[in-house]
């Protein structure tokens, strides 16, 4: 029983982190039906932004979160204005190749600039700290990352439901053409979507720095699981990403515990496959 609770909680914590990774991807997809294959690389650059802030400016990884958010936002804006916007007039495949190319460019660009080394934060408020709650030992860094994820989800959800901008974003997502005739500048909504997606990926990256290593290829580690989370929750669905993230986290830990650690990703992909087979729009997908 203790074991179940123990790993159940760690599954939920990690699941919230996956949900945060999926958030930016699902927002961008929801608004403009574009899959950003470079999302993992946005995360990676967010991690570098967080790590470099920690290493050279202020020795606390949490201080890197706002910096990484800004870097991610800038990255999203640049990616949209310099690349994606130009691809919109082409066939959908152009966008796929475009963001795929961006992924390779960012990954190998980071390799050239930062070198292949793994870097890690070794000190900080929550780095390698235990949090004992009612007899359970938790990783403080993961608790903070999960809390950050929950907070950002709440923020994005409220923004989407309660503000003029949020409603405009949703209108764009629901029907781009109609939105345009309601006076909504849908091109600007795309830009805001990319900025938002980049910012959340960046902040997620900086939160990961508290307990994860940073390397030019770290985006690869998280990409598959992020795409699976988004598809599982329903492309474009914000609450779907949250629920799917937690689900993926739980499947992961319980498979490793009950069946075998080497099958955990296989089980996640099987669940994903079944969901796609019987419910192609995902758990909470709108379309």
């Amino acid at each position: 029983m203790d074991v179940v609770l123990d790993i159940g909680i760690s599954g939920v914590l990690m699941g919230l982190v996956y949900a945060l990774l999926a958030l930016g991807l699902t927002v961008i997809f929801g608004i403009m039906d574009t899959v950003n294959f470079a999302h993992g690389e946005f995360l990676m650059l967010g991690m570098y932004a967080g790590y470099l802030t920690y290493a050279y400016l202020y020795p606390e990884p949490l201080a890197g979160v706002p910096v990484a958010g800004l870097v991610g936002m800038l990255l999203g804006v640049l990616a949209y204005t310099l690349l994606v916007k130009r691809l919109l007039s082409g066939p959908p495949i152009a966008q796929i190749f475009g963001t795929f190319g961006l992924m390779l460019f960012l990954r190998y660009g980071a390799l050239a600039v930062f070198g292949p080394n793994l870097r890690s934060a070794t000190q900080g408020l929550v780095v390698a700290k235990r949090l004992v709650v009612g007899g359970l030992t938790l990783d403080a860094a993961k608790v903070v990352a999960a809390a950050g994820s929950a907070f950002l989800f709440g923020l994005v959800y409220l923004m989407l439901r309660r503000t003029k901008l949020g409603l405009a974003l949703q209108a764009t997502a629901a029907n781009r053409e109609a939105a345009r005739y309601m006076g909504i500048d849908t091109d600007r909504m795309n830009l805001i979507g990319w900025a938002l997606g980049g910012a959340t990926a960046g902040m997620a990256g900086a939160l990961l720095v508290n307990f994860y290593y940073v390397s030019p290829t770290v985006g690869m580690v998280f990409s598959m699981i992020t795409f699976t989370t988004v598809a599982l929750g329903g492309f474009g669905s914000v609450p779907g990403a949250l629920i799917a993230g937690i689900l993926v986290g739980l499947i992961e830990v319980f498979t490793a515990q009950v069946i075998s650690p080497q099958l955990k990703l296989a089980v996640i992909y099987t669940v994903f496959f079944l969901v796609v087979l019987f419910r192609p729009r995902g758990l909470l997908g709108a379309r």
Partner: protein
Amino acid sequence: MLRVRRWIRTIAAVLGLIVFVGTLPSAAQETVKIGVILPLSGPLAPTGQELRRGYELMVDIVNNVYPELAALGLEVAGWNGIPSLGGAKIEPIFADSRGEPAVGADMARRLILEQGVVGLMGAYQSSVTQTVATVAERHGIPLVNSDSSSPTLTTLGYEWFWRVTPHDMIFDDDLFNLLDGLVEGKAPGVPAVPKDSIRRLAVVVENTEFGSATGNDIVNRLAPERGYEVVEYMRYQANSPDLTSETARLVNSGADVYLFASYVSDAILFMRTLALRGAKPTLIWGQNAGFTNPDFVQALGPALHGVLTRSLFIAKIGEVRPIAAAINELYRQRYGTNLSEESAREMLGVLAWAHALNNAGSTNPRALQRALNELDIPGDQLITPWQGIKFGSRRPGEKNQNIYATGMIGQYQYNPETGGVTLEIVYPFEAATADMVFPFPGWD
């Protein structure tokens, strides 16, 4: 389609030309050409460069006179070329395998047919070495390997393949020699420990070739042979974003000893998560790879105090082997870093070649084959704590393996006064540079 083919042909021709020009001899003098096949481009390029430095320095020592090394008893340092060949210089000719078996074989053919090399070295990845060995075998040209560790290579019955360095099963033997040594009271600074404090093993390996080979050898061969109990055999995915549940499983197994075969990222995650859980095994050992990576040390620092890792070469050996210290110093002056496992490997390979050439007194392949078969270099000529280099068989079906080759096991030790973490040698026991920390002190 036709255009694509023309392009491919053009590109292939250009690449071929580059490789050909790159491998042309630098000067037409009396030299002994040894072809060296390494992964000099592709993902393993940094490792390839490290390996290359080892070759170059040792070739330099053989080809010239280094009085300070000669004074320490290193014979080749006083040779000024191969004495029995009238002072002929060794000329290494590098070829890039790009880390691909087919390319490696092709390079071997070219080195033999176009360059007329008398011998070969390389090719780092065991899969590439194997295809190169096939080419060497067909042409009857000796291949002396010092950088591949797949046990299979010396069991294929090759007549033209010799391995200077230990293979993975020898490394695994080393681990159990250390465990047995603890029980027998042989470990430096540790009184004999009851076997029950280290009997229960957890074997945690990443689930590709590297980890599985180590895991299976320990679980199926060594643990039963030496009387240890494997309570958890866990194969995990190295690219997992999270290893929390794996760690929980490991801790819950109640094992005394944790044995890892991991790459660097997963090694870091495991150590961090274990530390957070306050795991307290009596011993933690890692099979090289991630556990010797500088990034691993940087990420964990003092938290590594007491963790063991196997390695072929640990620079600290200089404290007990003056020749190793002097060569390390030379290496530092030239390249700015300590000798690494990779560069040390290649120095041993060149050393074996130098002695074989000198003993043969000829570059005739048959003469070289005989010289290698009969090679017997004493341990005092080496930078490793081995009895020497002598090829033979240590187990049934094995051939042309250096019977004296062993690995080293190092222990990370934190020095609170300097704030630094050093890798001290604790095995082989006679080459120990510090007392072993046992049991593992935990992370509290």
